[in-house]
């Protein structure tokens, strides 16, 4: 893949067809039917009370609400699932989720899903690349996907109709 010079035939495996239905952040959270991203146009799912900005503290706050805590590095820790956050030019660009065997799962934008041996194979890439993994968060593996915070206000309740018995 020319876009990712670090990807070689031996260090990644495609695991899905390309789809526009979810983002790399969605996939890091085991979501495969909704795009989650803090876009300022309010096209995608995002908590209503968090800014729609791509800065690292904002995204870490979101992941914290989903049950993740900051951790120092990418090394495999038994019983924990980790997310690596790639940043380029002070903006988050990619999320990768660590698998139980230490490899990583990524959705490449709105392209394919892959499993890759390490994090550096996706880093760099020039002005449209992912930058570098700079922050890591973890949660205890419990066999379930993380519980996400509400991404948008729920629909308003139906109007209350009072029936009078006369």
């Amino acid at each position, binding site marked *: 893949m020319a876009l990712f010079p670090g990807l070689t035939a031996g260090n990644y495996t495609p695991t899905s067809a390309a789809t*526009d239905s979810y983002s790399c952040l969605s996939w890091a959270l085991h979501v495969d039917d909704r795009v989650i991203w803090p876009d300022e146009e309010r096209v995608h799912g995002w908590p209503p009370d968090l800014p729609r900005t791509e800065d690292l503290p904002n995204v870490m706050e979101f992941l914290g609400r989903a049950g993740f805590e900051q951790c120092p590095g990418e090394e495999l820790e038994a019983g924990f699932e980790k997310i690596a956050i790639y940043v380029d030019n002070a903006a988050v660009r990619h999320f990768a989720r660590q698998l139980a065997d230490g490899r990583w799962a990524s959705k490449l934008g709105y392209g394919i899903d892959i499993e890759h041996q390490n994090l550096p194979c996706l880093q760099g890439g020039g002005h449209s690349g992912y930058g570098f993994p700079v922050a890591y968060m973890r949660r205890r593996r419990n066999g379930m996907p993380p519980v996400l915070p509400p991404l*948008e206000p729920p629909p308003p309740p139906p109007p209350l109709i009072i029936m009078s018995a006369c």
Partner: protein
Amino acid sequence: MLSYELAEQKVASPAYLPGAISSSGLHPVHIGQWTANTVRNRQAETNVQPEFVGLVRQIYADMFDQLSNSLVTETRHISSTSAMKQHPAFQALVSLGDATVSAILARLRTGRIHVQWFTLLRVLTGEDPVAPVNRGYVDRMTRDWLDWAARRP
């Protein structure tokens, strides 16, 4: 010479026909901006020739195809909306204005859906017809935008 007259000459020149764009060496972004300017200038005239309008519409359609293919292909690996918006083809599609809106809605109707369409629709129309609970769901956003289009005068 008025700019649209110059534009007409360019349209008549084989090197500027849509099928020859790649061999002309011109970047699709420049063609898109030129086309938008041409139509704006031409629409200001009272005696619009139907043949010219038809030709420009065809150029619009061809330009949308080229620019949208470029945008989708070259930003497919990008989740970041802000990064996607920096792509030259995104800016060129914005410069095409209502023609881009119409072309996107036509594609949504036929199921040729890409997530980039929704950001373009938001930027170009200033409207937000998608229910908050539907944000991020491609199929639901498609339905809400097509409902919006059906309500448009």
